[in-house]
């Protein structure tokens, strides 16, 4: 099977505590996957490892057709290779406008010299408008992103990820703190995104995961407990015990 991301046998300990324990995980090039699990299951740590923020003690993380190892690379390199990440709380640059935020994320050379001489042309402005429209921020282009509502910030961040044109998108709890209407729109956005790239969504909310209608991976104590459709995993007695039963 040709997978885009292949994580195998990864372990990481923090001061003797095994946050990730012999974890293996695969995702295809255009697949939507939900990752669920109780608090402290290691979901965020898993994303930290893939994006280069945390170095695992053991295991392999391979990406793309050429199976590039992500382990020795910096966060910025991994991002340039094609892994985008959305954090648990919205992190946009509040002091800058929606346009500035999107321009910064737009796929282009990232080195200081190139950036210094880079000036947006008509094509870039059009692309920014298109992205803003896609995440429902067409009217807010000139506003400082700090003024946006919580949900709008989440979408701006998704817009920025789109602008990066990643091949793999890791999304940590996108629906947290959103209103019902905002959640529905977010679901639609993620499903749409996964048509052209791999998307991994970490979420607590079962209803939200159910609406995504995709394969689900259940993490528990740093390794995979179950995998399959939402109905399959919610029927698994072990899953019920560690997660749903509480």
């Amino acid at each position, binding site marked *: 099977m040709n997978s885009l991301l292949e994580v195998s046998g990864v372990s990481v300990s923090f001061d003797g505590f095994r946050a990730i324990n012999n974890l293996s995980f695969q995702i295809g090039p255009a697949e939507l996957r939900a990752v669920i699990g109780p608090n402290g299951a290691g979901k965020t740590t898993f994303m930290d490892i893939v*994006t280069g*923020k945390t170095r695992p003690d053991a295991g392999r993380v391979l990406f793309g057709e050429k199976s590039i190892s992500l382990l020795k690379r*910096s*966060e*910025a*390199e991994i*991002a*340039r290779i094609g892994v*985008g*990440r959305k*954090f648990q709380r919205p*992190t946009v*640059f*509040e*002091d*800058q*406008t929606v346009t*500035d935020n999107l*321009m*910064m*994320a737009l796929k282009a050379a*990232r*080195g*200081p*010299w190139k*950036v*210094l001489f*880079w*000036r*947006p042309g008509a094509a870039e402005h059009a692309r920014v408008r298109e992205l803003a429209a896609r995440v429902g921020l067409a009217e807010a282009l*000139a*506003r*400082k992103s*700090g*003024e946006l509502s919580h949900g709008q910030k989440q979408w701006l961040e998704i817009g*920025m990820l789109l602008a*990066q044109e990643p091949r793999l998108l890791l999304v940590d709890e996108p629906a947290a703190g959103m209103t019902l209407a905002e959640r529905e729109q977010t679901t639609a956005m993620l499903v749409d995104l996964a048509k052209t790239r791999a998307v991994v969504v970490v979420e607590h909310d079962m209803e939200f995961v159910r609406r995504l209608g995709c394969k689900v991976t259940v993490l528990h104590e740093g390794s995979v407990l179950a995998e399959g459709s939402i109905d399959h995993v919610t029927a698994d007695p072990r899953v019920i015990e560690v997660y749903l039963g509480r």
Partner: protein
Amino acid sequence: MDFLRKNPSVLWFLAILAVFTLAVTLMAPGTGSGAISTSFVKTLGKTLCLAMVALAMDLVWGYAGILSLGHMAFFAIGGYMIGMWQMYARTEEIVITSLAQSPIPPTATEIHQGIASQIFGVVGSSHMPEIWYFAHSLPAQLALVVLVPALLALVFGWLAFRSRVAGVYLSILTQAMTLALALWLFQNDSGLRGNNGLSGLQNIPGLGKVAQETLSVWFFWASALALALAYLLLAWVVSGKFGSVIRAIRDDEQRVRFLGYPVEGFKLFVFALTAVIAGIGGALYYPQAGIINPAELAPIASIYLAVWVAIGGRGRLYGAVMGAVIVSLLSSWFTGGRVPDVPLGFATIHWVDWWQVLLGLAFVLVTLFAPRGLGGLVDLVTGLHPPRRHGAALGPDSGSLQEREAQE
């Protein structure tokens, strides 16, 4: 020019600087009525150089969020580099004139020897240290004004940023760098005349016939030009995506990494660029000051620089200039001893001593109550117009401002 249209503050700044330069020229003894003294022209010229290093500080701290407390070291290095040529070339003129009296024409070695013992007699040495190798050449020393600060900043920055030293630890490290450099210079065998430093820098070799009153105006013009160019350059640097990225690094550098930007590379770039600007500022400052010694690298000097920028308002270039000009002019007024003491009965306020307290107090008050600094006053004027959404950056800690803006 698209850039100037989008950044009207640049034109305002250049216009004000031009008017100021013209006014000083018309009042200076060398070129105008003489309403102000030559030494005051020099003070103003020096102030413009300080404004230049404040611009650099604003880029590195106000925009990129790196609180460097070492930029005055780069400033002083610039001064030393130009001072070496000045001392060498001036002494050469003197030695050649004095040896011309002797019956046999002096050899090159004799001249070189003469210069060395003239310059280093004060530290009990008579040979030319290696680091004076290029001192005879103006172009070489001018190149070193740029290269030495750049190289030092690159090496220091590479070591510090690569190991992700940030925040207060980085500030302490830059202070340590400054102190180490000063202590090294204080030694007689540093080759830069120890605590004597370099002196007589007000005399420009080859221009011995030009009176100081004229020379002071020339240097004033050069300082104004350099400040204008530095302002244009930095305004251009922060106007585009580069400015966006460094402000983003200031606010959340981890997030910038996940966007794919090499954060350390950007920091290094900004650190080195601002070190170069500081060096050039110093090279223009010290010929107007006349003397440079290791005390100029005192760690406190770099802290003052941060205070100026904070009072002026970091994160906007004209704020930094306002801070440097106003605070440094006030400082030389208060410490000049011409401000009348205030007798309070039980004690007397000597401004020479109490100015520091006043400055410290101003710093605390600005930090607490006016994070936008003096530059914020400009907002009061432009605030009459509809809010400019592309406005200048806010300081890192001014969350309250954003909330207020959100209600507009």
